[in-house]
């Protein structure tokens, strides 16, 4: 049995028919064509599929699309503004906070929410904040640098 749901994705209301078992990650990628959200482990360990649900980072592979009917989703495609990349995205590029890029959409969503809640995190708070996202390339050094740089960029903007 399929369910007709409406998701507000990156500001646009999208209607879609999904079976109950459709994961939010698959709904975004396959039904809505938003392949920026990456799928790594599909059991909540790697963090690649992290998106913002009503502003809070959650695992889209551990959420059913039908559960979040009517809610607002922000994916990596929705982070950039009309003037280009967001401060978090610019900081990751500037600090080489990525290599292959597979984990990056999850990191960007997680860090965007982290810095909104805590605009000037300590090193420990950054590590705790990104502890649920795995990166197999960078060794995390440049990612933590990028988070601190993003905090600077955000502070300059306001």
């Amino acid at each position, binding site marked *: *049995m399929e*369910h007709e749901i409406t998701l507000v994705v990156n500001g646009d209301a999208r209607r879609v028919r999904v*079976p*109950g*078992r459709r*994961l939010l990650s*698959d709904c975004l990628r396959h039904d809505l064509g938003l392949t920026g959200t990456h799928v790594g482990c*599909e*059991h*909540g360990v790697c*963090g690649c599929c*992290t998106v913002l*649900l009503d502003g*809070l*980072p*959650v*695992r889209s*592979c*551990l*959420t*059913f699309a*039908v*559960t979040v009917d009517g809610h607002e989703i922000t994916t990596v495609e929705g982070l950039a503004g009309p003037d280009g990349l967001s401060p978090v995205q610019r900081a990751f590029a500037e600090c080489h906070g990525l290599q292959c890029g597979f984990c990056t959409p999850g990191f960007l969503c*997680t860090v965007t929410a982290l810095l909104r809640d805590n605009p000037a995190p300590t090193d420990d708070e950054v590590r*705790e*904040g990104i*502890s*649920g*996202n795995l990166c197999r390339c960078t060794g995390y050094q440049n990612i933590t640098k990028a988070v601190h740089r993003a905090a600077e960029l955000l502070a300059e903007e306001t």
Partner: protein
Amino acid sequence: MKPPPFEYHAPRDLGEALRILAGVRGKVLAGGQSLIPLLNMRLMAPEHLIDINRIESLATIETTPRGVTVGALARHSEVEHSGAHPLLGQALRLVAHPVIRNRGTVVGSLVHADPAAELPAVLAVLNGSVRLARDGAAAGDAPLVRDVGAAEFFTGPLESAVRPDELAVSAFFPALPARTGTAFREVARRHGDYALAGVCAVVTLDDDLRVGSARVACVGVGPVPITVDVTSECDGRPAATVDWAAVTRAVREATEPEGDIHATAAYRLRLVGVLAGQALSEAAREAAAD
């Protein structure tokens, strides 16, 4: 890695949820941070899934002088940031990662009853309880409710006292008496993983700052959280002169860890003693400062 098909139910209120549970056999979905991995890995294939995420009346955290009542839809992060209970806060910071805590629920973790999880130990050490409701259509209209104490609630690994037609609607965590300190210590392979072993401790001092009561609950070292009352081993002494080695011996004797690929039984047994000593002395220090 896709969930098997199931019939999806999305009740709008508690009565509707209980009527569905009275009629079908299935699993209740709240935060889904344990259930959905099990579905994705096809370790579980329920015919029906009852999604309670639309029942806003369950998204509550109520604090009274007696304690904190956490509704079935209160997320870990909400309870953590509410500051409603010091030991709950200490335990929740050890539960998985912040992103998982945005979605997972406290009551869901209790019902999941993983013997290595933190929250069952908190309920056990505090002598808390879980409120279970079932459809009351046969006996009038109001839901039939029963409260189950922690000692009876956890019945085995991943098994709780919740019957198939019941919904866990809330959990009650009793408030701490005066001059009481708490601590939660655990060792995990990686940050955010389930613990190899963990201990939460509650220590209450009397008017002369002697240990009036001391309890621990241990995770990862038995089929359910193992609670041990070590008040008599503390022998009514001031915390600074308690023979912690004798106390931790009593804790070790009460546990029955099993070995697996992550740690041997002997290592877990040693670990639980060390962690109990640390947690108890930390809780005693906190109690003295209270």
